[in-house]
């Protein structure tokens, strides 16, 4: 006993977690052929504790990443509002020119448009475009918000001269679109136009 190091003495006198289950664990450590014969027992336990802590911290980081699929980290700068404004203008121009492919490319597959005459999917929106004549329009008072780095909300007033079927739908509308970044591409997931009072 007198030849034992301070570490060995401490480890033998008071095991850190006490219980009988730990004795079995310690006895297995002794059998470990990689442990040097004079390796202090507490050091092995400390190493194992550190190893388990590292594993736990690594797993916890994975947890946090899992529960926050779209957080904006400080290093992620929000996209320039101009990008979103330009995309919105592109969608209007594609609609005016009845460019089906261009419009579809800007819309998400799960797109919804909400209007007074109904709630429309992408296919319904494209079908509407075919029967709508947008003779002229102007867009004003653009505002862009980024709830997070992958989501943008754009609001503005749209004044249009247009007919849909036989109906004149000209007027000024409070308008909004929500754009979501998928990979490197922004897609429109939601659009609405509400005629102002």
């Amino acid at each position, binding site marked *: 006993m007198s030849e034992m190091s301070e570490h060995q003495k401490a480890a033998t006198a008071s095991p850190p977690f006490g219980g009988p289950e730990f004795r079995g*664990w310690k006895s*297995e*450590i002794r059998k*470990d*052929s*990689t442990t040097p014969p004079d390796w202090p027992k507490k050091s092995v336990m400390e*190493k*194992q504790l550190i*190893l*388990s802590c590292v*594993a*736990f911290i*690594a*797993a*916890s980081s*994975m*947890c946090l990443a*899992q*529960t*926050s*699929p*779209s*957080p904006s980290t400080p290093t992620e700068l929000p996209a320039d509002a101009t990008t979103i404004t330009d995309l919105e203008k592109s969608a209007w121009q594609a609609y005016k020119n009845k460019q089906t492919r261009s419009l579809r490319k800007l819309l*998400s597959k*799960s*797109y*919804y448009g*909400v*209007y*007074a*005459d*109904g*709630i429309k999917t992408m296919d319904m929106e494209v079908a509407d475009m075919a029967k709508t004549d947008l003779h002229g329009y102007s867009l004003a008072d653009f*505002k862009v*918000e*980024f*709830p*997070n780095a*992958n*989501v943008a*909300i754009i*609001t503005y007033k749209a004044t249009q001269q247009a007919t849909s079927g036989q109906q004149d739908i000209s007027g000024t509308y*409070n*308008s*909004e679109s*929500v754009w*979501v*970044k*998928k990979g490197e591409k922004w*897609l429109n*997931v*939601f659009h*609405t136009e*509400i*005629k*102002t*009072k």
Partner: protein
Amino acid sequence: MKTRFVFFWTTLIAATAMCFGQTSPPEPGKPATKEEAIINLEKSVTEAYKNKQADSFKKYLARNYVGVNADGITSVNTEITGIEKTDLLNYSFADMKVVFPKAGVAVITYKTTVQSTAAGQDTSGTYNVASVWAERWGKWALISHAFMKSQ
């Protein structure tokens, strides 16, 4: 060495199990689907509005919330002010649909029929509605709400 490996993997597996537990709904029994969770949030925020529970209502809204209606573009503050002026006597929801264009983003659309007054005017009728919810650090917040009287 073998024992250390066993211990390492046991810890890792236990922690991973905690990860999965974290993403599971907290309530036992039948877990709500993602769609049901968004529908429940939409119903809860509407109920808070109806009951004029401004504090509770505000908790559902993102700081940079944007609303759109025939009167204009609204923010959190204008929505809170609107609660005071509005009496939502009754409402019902129909045709609720939820899509997730991307993980952490939900769009819900539906029709609502309301009996209500705003600033003394009868605003009852059927409205087409859409809300967009975004998840941040495991919590869903309402980022956009649009409603218009259906024709």
